[in-house]
């Protein structure tokens, strides 16, 4: 039967494309373990030089940068989730005048590129003396995340069975209780998906940090890596180690929660 051949072809294709996706990343992991100064191509290191990581860590001050990234990402995720839940709840379960228009206003944010707003953001925040602070990184990213978060929670709440809400209402519950005691527990997987996506986007953000941050100890990990590359541009093993340090938190989160990451991307299409 062609079933076997089909199966083999399928796996061959999947393995092939997966290999291409993984090869550069695997290669840089190997590069980070090579002896410094001898790097050439991607090859299996003769002996493992974990010292590269230690050196990148200290020379590159990555402890500071990771801490900074963590503070920003966690703040954005927590606040954006909260506000998205509230807004999504409003859009998803209530009809009020202008709700359509207001939703389109939020939807716009999904398409607005940071490049279109980073210039005024800089000058406005500077006028408020907020540049070079965590606020300059956190507040705009909450704003941008709200476009996605509101859309996401609205879609979810809209597809929640009406019976759930009605039962609660009949029981005498107020809106607040309905949201937090009925809907949120029900929506936990969707909320988790939203949180991991916002975490990833915030952690990886570079342009905003480049514009807003001048002091070294406020640098987020991507920004730190960029300047690290400028300083050590021909020390490939060191750069490789630094690159891995910077991507580790978000990649680890991804591997542990990959179900939620991918579901997030897929659902956009499914809902449509």
């Amino acid at each position, binding site marked *: 039967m062609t079933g076997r051949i089909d199966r083999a*072809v*399928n796996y061959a294709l999947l393995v092939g*494309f997966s290999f*291409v*996706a993984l090869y550069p*990343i695997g*290669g*840089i992991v190997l590069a980070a373990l090579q002896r410094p100064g001898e*790097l*050439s*191509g991607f090859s299996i290191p003769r002996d493992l030089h974990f010292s590269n990581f230690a050196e990148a860590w200290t020379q590159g001050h990555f402890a500071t940068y990771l801490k900074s990234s963590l503070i920003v990402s966690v703040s954005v995720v927590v606040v954006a989730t909260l*506000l*998205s839940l*509230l*807004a999504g709840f*409003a859009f998803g379960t*209530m*009809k*009020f005048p202008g709700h359509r228009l*207001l939703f389109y206003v939020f939807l*716009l*944010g999904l*398409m*607005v*590129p*940071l*490049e*279109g*707003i980073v*210039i*005024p953001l800089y000058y*406005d925040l500077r006028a408020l003396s907020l540049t070079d602070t965590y606020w300059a990184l956190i507040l*705009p990213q909450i*704003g*941008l995340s*709200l*476009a996605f978060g*509101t859309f996401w929670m609205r879609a979810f709440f809209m597809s929640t069975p009406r019976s*759930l809400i009605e039962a*609660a209402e009949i*029981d005498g519950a107020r*809106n607040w209780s*309905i949201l*937090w*005691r009925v809907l949120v527990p029900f929506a936990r997987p969707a909320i988790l998906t939203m949180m991991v996506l916002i975490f*990833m986007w915030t*952690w*990886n953000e*570079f*342009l905003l940090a480049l514009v807003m941050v001048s002091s070294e100890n406020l640098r987020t990990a*991507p*920004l730190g*890596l960029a300047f690290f590359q400028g300083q050590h541009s021909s020390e*490939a093993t060191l*750069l490789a180690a630094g690159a891995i340090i910077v991507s580790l938190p978000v*990649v680890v989160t*991804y591997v542990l929660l990959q179900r939620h990451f*991918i579901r997030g991307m*897929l659902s956009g*299409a499914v809902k449509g």
Partner: protein
Amino acid sequence: MKDSLPVQARIGLRAGRRARARDKAPPGEPRAIGYLYLLPALLVYGAFVLLPLGHSVLLSFYEWDGITEGTWIGLSNYQDLITDSQTRAAFLHALILILFYSILPVAIGLLLAALISRTDLRGLTWFRTILFLPQVVPLVVVAVIWSYIYAPGTGPLNEGLRAVGLDGLTRSWLGDFSWALPSVGLVGTWVQYGLCMVLFIAGVQKIPTSLYDAARVDGAGPGHEFLAVTLPNLRNEIAVALTLTIIASLRNFDLVYLTTKGGPGNATSVPAFEVYNQAFEVGQVGFASAIGVVLALIIFAITGVVNRIAEARE
């Protein structure tokens, strides 16, 4: 009726039972309380996204160096944008990059979706995890990795070519006037194709087998099957893939800044990079704002068109 509710809901209800009864408007009537729930999000979003957007438009009508007083010049920046050959080139490069970041990955994804038969795919989770990985890695890291891969002397790409005897094909990828832009583009292809694949595989698995059977009964070959059954049913997935990847291709500041800075010459200049360069280095904030506004408008337009086409057949 309560018995049919999921456990969580029942627990929630019990906990909230002590809530006072309040008059509720019958379902369907407007509830002004909605505004209150919406307000915090609207405030933050308005202040940090909408307001700057409007401010961008305003700034684009000025000539300003960011430090001293600005002067009103109306649509002059937009005129310059259209007439300046270097800015036009930047937008042209962006269009070319859409080919690499968007069209190519979507095509690759569709190819896979067409070839993969929808038999039981075991281990799909693992493949999805790996295929999606390039999307997760920060672009800064992607830039570091690929800068190294493209390095003329010791980079893996040239080493690999030499190893298989294709010495003649080795070149200075990021420094070559003809190859720099495609090189940057291929990085984008690498980042985006996994996303498209994952999207389309999932989409294909949702297509009912009956449709394929019906097509086969009509005597359709695999090509026709693809065009008549697979493609139309992937419309939504394709629209999402195109939207996400096109936005990514127009937003590629990180990659250009960290690999070529627009070089060699101006071969890899892109609008996203020009926004930063013109505003914060050259000191032409108004002009940079105009570029940003046009970039946003292009994204709006393309997104609109893509989604319009996706709906057209519905």
